[in-house]
């Protein structure tokens, strides 16, 4: 009897939470028609926002792989002084409000810091530019890849990597041939989370790159901008596109994981 009651409560609470996720999505999908949607995507500003978002989020993904995987490897496989501090610093952007991150980047890259002055003197201006968007998104989304990859590296049986070393493989060979293949699911998960977070990033991007339509306006900024100016049709169209992309990529990832060999 108690078990039935317990299961009922669990189901009820889960149902309430699922409603919180599903109902706003249903609201979005039911307030527009396919023909209206198709019409919205003819607008060059919306197309530009979509393109900028995909360009910058994919650049973020690439940069996170290049710079984030080594950090994840260091944290997972090595012991060094200050490891705890580095680990906490990596977590900080996840907890920090994106606006704060944006403010920090704005000061660093703008003309008010020595670094900003140094960049400007060499003709590099990251403020109100696509590279600025990438930096802002990388700051906010990069830690997701690092955390997920680190956990995946740590989950690989240490004896397996040590066996590779004893068989004569270098550390790099072991990383490439043993660690990466065995940690790939965790890395893929981190990639998806990083990409999705970068795609949906708003606060830091707005601070660093502004919302210049056709130049630095991303999809999330366009959603906000159109909604604030009363153009709900355009706002909904971009929002639906974001949802479809996020849902599809997560679905593809999950089905891929299911196809993996057990133990691999």
């Amino acid at each position, binding site marked *: 009897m108690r078990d039935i009651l317990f299961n009922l409560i669990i189901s009820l609470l889960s149902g309430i939470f699922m409603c919180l996720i599903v109902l706003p999505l249903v609201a979005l999908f039911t307030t527009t028609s396919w023909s209206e949607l198709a019409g919205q995507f003819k607008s060059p500003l919306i197309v530009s926002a979509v393109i900028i978002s995909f360009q910058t989020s994919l650049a973020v993904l690439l940069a996170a792989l290049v710079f984030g995987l080594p950090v994840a490897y260091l944290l997972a496989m090595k012991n060094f002084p200050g490891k705890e501090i580095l680990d906490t610093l990596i977590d900080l952007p996840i907890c920090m409000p994106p606006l704060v991150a944006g403010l920090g980047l704005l000061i660093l890259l703008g003309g008010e810091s020595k670094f900003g002055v140094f960049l400007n003197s060499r003709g590099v201006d990251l403020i109100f530019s696509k590279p600025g968007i990438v930096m802002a998104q990388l700051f906010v989304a990069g830690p997701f890849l690092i955390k997920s990859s680190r956990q995946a590296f740590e989950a690989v*049986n240490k*004896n*397996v990597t*040590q*066996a*590779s*070393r*004893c*068989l*004569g*493989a*270098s550390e790099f*060979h072991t990383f490439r*041939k*043993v660690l990466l*293949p*065995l940690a790939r699911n965790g890395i893929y998960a981190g990639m998806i989370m990083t990409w999705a977070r970068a795609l949906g990033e708003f606060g830091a991007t707005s601070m660093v790159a502004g919302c210049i339509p056709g130049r630095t306006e991303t999809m999330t900024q366009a959603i906000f901008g159109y909604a604030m100016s009363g153009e709900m049709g355009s706002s909904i169209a971009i929002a639906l596109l974001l949802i479809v992309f996020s849902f599809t990529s997560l679905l593809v990832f999950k089905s891929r994981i299911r196809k993996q*060999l*057990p*133990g*691999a």
Partner: protein
Amino acid sequence: MNIVLRQISKSFHGRPVLENLDLKVAPGEFHVLLGPSGGGKTTMVSVIAGLTKPDSGSVLINDRDVSLLPPGKRKIGLVFQDCAIFPHLDVFDNIAYGLRVRKQGEANIRQKLKYYLEKTGLEKEKHKFPHQLSGGQKQRTALLRTLVTEPEVLLLDEPMSSLDILTREQISAELVNIQRKTGLTTIYVTHNQAEAFSLGDRISVLHNGKIEQIETPEELFYHPKTEFVARFVGINNILKAKVAATSRREAVMEITNEGLSQSFKLKVKNYPVFKKGEAINLCLHPEKINLSKKNAAIDGGLNRICGKIIKRTNHGNTFKVTVDIRGLALHAVIPKFLFNFQVYEEVWVVFAPDALHPLCGRRCRAPEFSRKCHNDLLTY
């Protein structure tokens, strides 16, 4: 290839795991590291393999100091307790891994592996992934993966601990066969004393980061140096004694163990270390004890003490019997066909003077005539 460890020390978080450890393993020797869990065995192997950096000391392989070399440059082969075969590679690719690292040609690898796979009965399994293999097949794969790289030294870290007894015996036999044929210097880690005695040319007993004794299996069993070694190899009868009298061949010992309601005397073969009035620990082998219903004088030289059976456990073809003698628990291993007693029955515990020996290892080995005497008594 010989292996020499000089003054190896290693601590983890301030807790010493290995302390000034010295060891010499002769070329072609099958050396067993025996000890309880947490004794430092795996750390020691890890230090030899180069996977753990010692705090101090050096490792020499074939008189070459390899202390600063990475694992791959030490020419060692290491087989792990959990096999550690690569889960994303099939049997063939697992075994070929080391050869590919050494950039041996693919044709050469195929030819070499064909020979080994056929020889070990893994040919049919070569395209299977680790999760599709049995425990024995996994261990064979791990062993083969190591052996095909032709290491100079083979290290095995409790490789049989997760296998059933039949597979363990089968793989042990294969391993000994390979080791004898190749003359590969081998260090084998185990906590199983039966495995250590059956495999090792010599055994090192490791306890709390220190080697308590290094001996051949025979010497270790019959001449343990310390109480720990004696108990670990299965001799639980440790008697605290005081030398009451000595003659040329025999000594009389007064047993004074804690918990004894009344001390008693025993005749023991005389050892050079016995000095009248001095205290010494004696070890009484359980398999050298006989039980008798009557206090009959079978042989004038035998010790006879009255006690009561308090426990009997079944060990296949033998019983392990615990007899209470005035508050002292003595353990005896009696063949089943000789056991016709009941628990709580009073019995006479009978053993020869040379069933006891002092705990001081080889240096106080029994004189030759005593051991001959002991052999005669065993036929009794």
